[in-house]
């Protein structure tokens, strides 16, 4: 890892080229970004969902890419934020899993351990003011119980039954919290997730309508296909115009 250079001189945000005499920084401003990720813990596993788009500011740049990464046979990451930092996270997590495998002691990282590893790393980057500009949802199934946790670019780390990042915090959490019960099944949760993804497509300007759900159950990780959402645009007022049948000019 190109480490800390405690040298003088300030080089504005976004400076990432290695120059003698200045600290090395990477993402200070996100460029290609993914939108929200949602997750719900169920009685028999965990479901996470996100759309499949990476935006370049207001441009819908990459429209059919996966924002999920299978970290281990029983753990999946769903990531929002800067896409290049997501790719770096993928490399890091894979390298760590490989190192564990190479130790050849029959042990591997549990989902909780993967979350802790990411949380430590993200907080360390935050302290260097050189963050990985992401919000990561870690979903896993270990020893008969699902785990769902979040780490963000500041290193904030927590676990809950219902989690979301980005716009889904405001639009998705109310619906997910209403729907969640301790005995909810993965199949029921998928229906709720689809409803929330539709609301996100309607109201978040940086999403598209092709989405992907993933589940982690006792049987392992299953990443679903990229599916186009069935959205409703045929309300009378939308089709005819809100002023139909009226003399009002507004």
């Amino acid at each position, binding site marked *: 890892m190109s480490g800390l250079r405690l040298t003088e001189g300030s080089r504005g945000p976004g400076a990432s080229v290695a120059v003698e005499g200045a600290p090395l920084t990477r993402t200070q401003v996100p460029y290609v970004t993914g939108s929200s990720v949602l997750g719900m813990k169920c009685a028999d596993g965990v479901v996470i969902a996100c759309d499949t788009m990476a935006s370049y500011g207001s441009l819908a740049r990459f429209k059919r890419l996966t924002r999920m990464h299978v970290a281990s046979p029983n753990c999946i990451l769903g990531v929002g934020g800067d896409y290049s930092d997501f790719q770096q996270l993928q490399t890091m997590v894979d390298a760590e899993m490989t190192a564990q495998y190479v130790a050849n002691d029959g042990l591997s990282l549990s989902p909780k351990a993967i979350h802790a590893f990411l949380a430590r790393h993200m907080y360390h980057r935050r302290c260097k003011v050189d963050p990985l500009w992401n919000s990561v949802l870690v979903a896993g199934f270990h020893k008969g119980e699902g785990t769902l946790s979040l780490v963000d670019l500041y290193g904030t780390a927590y676990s809950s039954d219902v989690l979301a990042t980005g716009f889904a915090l405001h639009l998705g959490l*109310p619906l997910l919290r209403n729907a969640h019960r301790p005995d909810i099944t993965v199949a029921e949760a998928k229906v709720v997730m689809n409803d929330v993804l539709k609301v996100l497509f309607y109201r978040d300007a940086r999403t598209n309508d092709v989405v992907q759900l993933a589940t982690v159950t006792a049987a392992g990780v299953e990443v679903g296909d990229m599916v186009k959402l069935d959205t409703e645009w045929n309300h009378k*007022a939308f089709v005819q115009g809100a002023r139909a049948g009226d003399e009002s000019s507004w």
Partner: protein
Amino acid sequence: MVFPCLPLLRHAASLWYGSLCGRRGYTMPKPVKTGTTIAGVVFADGIVLGADTRATSGSTVFEKFCEKIHYIAPNIYCCGAGTSADTESSTGLISSQLELHRLATGRESRVSTSLTMLKRMLFRYQGHVSAALVLGGVDLHGPHLYTVYPHGSTDRLPYVTMGSGSLAAMAVFETGYKDDLSLEDAKNLVYRGISAGIYNDLGSGGNVDLCIIKRGSTEYLRGFATENARKYRRPSGYAFAPGTTAVLSSKFTRPLKEIAVVEEAGVAEAAVDGAATPATGEMDTTT
């Protein structure tokens, strides 16, 4: 300190108060905002409007049960989000103007009339009057539901939400709205939307108020759902024994002038101005 002239008194006083606060290290209180969830839905027979009841100033709850659904006309009501003073005074002003208009025309008010009055006023103030409104009513042309933004733009839609809890409420509406809802379904949808705002947004809270406007009838359900009422109140109240609070000193004074009580045809009045109430002296007690 001498103030220049009476009309400027209130402004000058508030400036002086503000500087006093600054000198002593206090901060001026923030304007009371409604930090709100308000919503409206068009259903088969009319409009259902809904609102929460929390008014905040910064992160303090100023009022737990305020009224955010304002009267504009017998057939038109308006929910208000943003600065409380701005929503109350702009809706009150337009309501008065509309009543004069009704007297002049002899007709029931139209929703688009109140909309035009509101948007013209708000545009004139270029967004400085911070009033974000959900205006709904039923007139001869049917049900109308509008949003009015602080800068004066308007939208006409079948379902609308405004305020800090608007995203939570809109998420519920986007999943639950259908054309031509029944009254019960519409009430339930608005109730669920406002509840989503109350429980997921920190700027909203308290009870759910609903207002149902149909052709020829309006029903204002203040406190439609009161799920956040105080759970326990001490039934006997509080009784503090004398001496609970230490009395440091007492001073008794006689009134300055004699009190004459004149009774005429059954009307009793205290004849002297500035006098204390009869039968007790003025008590100046410091604690």
